[in-house]
């Protein structure tokens, strides 16, 4: 089915998608969170009539505008890359995946792009209340656009609400609501947006801390910190809650990913949580370089079982259980899944050949068999395994998943403490005396970006080799094109995005140095 597969092509296509997605995700979380923070600040301006809040709103709006532009620039590539580099995937799932993307455009992007113009240029053209509404609608539009793309991503992690149609050789939607309200999609949306709010709040506090350290625009900085710290604290608590429920979804639907990011090689009842660990460079399984043990680990007994299944003694399968199978706990071996997947592919091939040869009766009989609930459940649900030749390739990179996950979690805990301290110091009116905290606040900005990127590494590297869990491996999704062509576009984007990122950082730093301005003057001077 994927004759003449070019691994270099697959790897370059993955690299290009990872590059564009990671660049895009540098800018998106700030847009999502800062949009809401700006709307809160402007609400305070409209409610109190205090012009200081208008000045504060306009400063953060300038930051928002710079960041928004480059977020848009990197985003358009992502949408079209599904077609340019993953065309087999686009056809296979277009019937389901395309709908959220279109709804995103119709309902969210237009809201964002219509009202952002009023938000930036409407101060002197529309009423205060209309302007405030436009600001809120811009923020809501941005977050709504995240909803739809995350619904699509959630579906890739846990395909629901569809059936395979052998005639068209693709997945077809049977329930829009199942796709929209899939627990995986809901958790993903809530966790991703709340973590974006955390990042934006840290950005506001970090930049404001710089002003206080420099002894300028103190009122502006303190007011900004109060808003961001309250917003950030609430968002960070919610991020932990949604992260917890998200991890439970993963444990249930993507046990291999769960085992990889928890570093669990051998499953057990009452499984312990590796709170901190150092993965050994020695290999525990010579046939697979991904399977490495720990040199050092701090493990808390039974916690993992409870976190995954709300039961202190529940069995949590490890990587070895998922590959070799575990009869006691009803876990099918990878080899068995592969043979079932191959059978599903063979049936589909036979159906296509019968159709081509005009053997109508045989084709109809094969179609009935393929579409039967029994075949769909027991064979077709392993369709993607049919492309796999070595079971060990079903294990994602454990070190990358494990470290990314733990970096995200540890930083997430630190952020809660950080917001609490920021709020406490500001409300006591003594934040200017805590210079060490203010310096730490500036350095927390890159840590927020690190945590945010690490989260996506866990989500996307952890689900490898699947582009659609169990149904389509990444290697089968790629467009048939020369690896050289993808290399060219990879480097093209690497150069363009890096240049634009440097420009953005320079512009932002200069705007921060210029600081909030008094009313009237244009923002570019």
């Amino acid at each position, binding site marked *: 089915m994927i004759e003449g597969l070019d691994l270099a092509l697959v790897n370059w296509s993955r690299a290009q998608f990872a590059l564009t997605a990671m660049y895009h995700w540098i800018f998106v979380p700030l847009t999502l969170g800062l949009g809401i923070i700006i709307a809160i600040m402007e609400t305070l301006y409209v409610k109190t009539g205090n012009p200081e809040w208008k000045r504060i709103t306009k400063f953060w709006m300038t930051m928002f505008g710079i960041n928004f532009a480059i977020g848009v620039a990197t985003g358009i590539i992502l949408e079209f890359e*599904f077609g340019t580099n993953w*065309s087999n995937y*686009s056809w296979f799932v277009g*019937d389901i995946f395309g709908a959220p*993307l279109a709804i995103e455009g119709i309902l969210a992007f237009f809201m964002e792009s219509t009202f952002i113009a009023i938000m930036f240029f409407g101060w002197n053209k529309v009423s205060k209340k209309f302007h405030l509404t436009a600001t809120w609608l811009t923020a809501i539009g941005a977050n709504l656009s995240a909803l739809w793309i995350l619904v699509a991503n959630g579906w890739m992690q846990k395909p629901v609400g569809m059936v395979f149609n052998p005639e068209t050789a693709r997945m*077809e939607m049977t329930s829009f609501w199942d796709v929209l309200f899939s627990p995986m999609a809901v958790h993903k949306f809530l966790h991703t947006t709340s973590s974006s709010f955390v990042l934006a709040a840290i950005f506001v506090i970090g930049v404001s801390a710089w002003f206080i350290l420099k002894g300028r625009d103190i009122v502006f900085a303190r007011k900004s910190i109060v808003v961001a710290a309250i917003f950030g604290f609430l968002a960070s608590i919610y991020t932990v809650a949604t992260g917890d429920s998200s991890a439970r979804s993963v444990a249930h639907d993507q046990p291999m990913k769960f085992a990889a990011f928890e570093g669990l090689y051998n499953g057990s009842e009452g499984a312990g949580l590796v709170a901190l660990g150092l993965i050994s460079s020695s290999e525990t399984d010579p046939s697979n370089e991904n399977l490495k043990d720990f040199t050092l680990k701090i493990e808390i007994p039974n916690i993992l079982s409870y976190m995954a299944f709300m039961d202190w003694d529940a069995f949590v399968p490890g990587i070895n259980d998922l590959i070799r199978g575990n009869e006691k706990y009803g876990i099918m071996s990878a080899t068995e899944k592969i043979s079932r997947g191959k059978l599903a592919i063979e049936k589909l091939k036979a159906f*296509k050949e019968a159709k081509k040869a005009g053997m109508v009766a045989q084709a109809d009989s094969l179609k009935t068999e393929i579409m039967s609930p029994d075949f769909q459940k027991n064979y077709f649900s392993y369709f993607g395994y049919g492309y796999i030749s070595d079971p060990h390739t079903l294990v994602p990179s454990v070190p990358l998943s494990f470290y990314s996950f733990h970096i995200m979690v540890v930083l997430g805990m630190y952020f809660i403490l950080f917001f609490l301290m920021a709020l406490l110091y500001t409300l006591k009116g003594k934040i200017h005396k805590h210079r060490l905290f203010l310096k730490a606040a500036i350095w927390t900005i890159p840590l927020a970006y690190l945590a945010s990127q690490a989260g996506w590494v866990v989500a996307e590297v952890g689900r490898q080799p699947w582009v659609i869990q169990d149904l389509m491996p990444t290697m089968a999704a790629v467009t048939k094109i020369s690896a050289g062509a993808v290399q060219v*576009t990879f480097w093209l984007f690497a150069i363009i995005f890096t240049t634009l990122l440097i420009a953005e950082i320079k512009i932002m730093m200069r705007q921060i140095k210029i600081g909030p301005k008094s009313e009237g003057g244009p923002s570019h001077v």
Partner: protein
Amino acid sequence: MFESLSLITLQQYWWLIVSLLGALLVFLMFVQGGETLFFSIARTEDEKTLLVNTLGRKWEFTFTTLVTFGGAFFASFPLFYSTSFGGAYWVWFAILVSFVIQAVSFEFRKKPANLLGAKTYEIFLFLNGLLGPLLIGTAVGTFFNGAMFSLDDMNRVTWGTPFRGLEAVLTFHNLALGLAVLFLSRVLGLLYFMNSIENTAIYERSKIQLLYNTVPFLVFFLYFVIALLFKDGFAYQPETGAITIEPYKYLHNLVAMPVNTFMLLIGVVGVLWGIVSTLLKGGTKGIWFVGGGTVLTVWALLILAAFNHTSFYPSVFDLQSSLTIENASSSRFTLVAMSYVSLFVPFVLGYIWYAWKAMNNKKISTEELEQEHHVY
């Protein structure tokens, strides 16, 4: 409501929506056309800033329409999305790169410490204005002239040339459409400047440029339309799905679909009236006639490409791989679900119109920019 419609009706309904988005995109490319005119219209830095800011408040509409056009195509005709984007790799990436560099250029151009300098961002805008309409127009030309792809029984695409879509420029009929769209976007850009800017010198220079750009637009557009009427087209048999070459197919389509033909004529008249009346009588309303005419004309042309049993994305490499609205569409269930979403479109158009009016009720001027907080 939509459940009672037949599959072919739903497919046609979605083609109408996608085509309308494409038509609106061409109208909104007045932003791209305007981007190619900064150097020829502006004489001073202040004038250039005025032009940039006039377009800078609208560029996101064009951008969003392009993204929504792509998303809607993906949702309703995923086989086109996977075939064209996966196949014509270089063409689509050239278009996308031109939009990437546009997206930052308005915001970054005048900001201090912008790394590349204002001139570079102005060149980025010029490149977007040149390549966007030209390449999109040329790519749409392949709807009538075909592309070099084949599909296997799993609908996976293979492209017939190593140029991955760039070979489309070698067909003059495609290129003529690209050039017509480019000069039309410049005409629209000029009319938008005349409509939205409070500056007599810019108005007069735009009027002169209007004439210079109308001539090549008409030459390429008329060539495209006349050649279309006489060329062979790609028909399909609804019973078997077989694709055949039919002489004068698009002429036959015009005759078979009189309402669409009427819409095409109204559109062309609207475009011509908008241009001619502005050239002869002056005024600022030309953009609405030409804009409305553009939407009707492009919409009618895209309907012509797909209705009346016509392949909208023919393959000249493997004729039977050609795409039709019947074989390239999403499933019935998805089309029905998406059709409910389409009910929001009038509401979206309504708030866009309201916001547009609120922002454009007063012409933009240098004095206003001096008072403005956010300037490009």
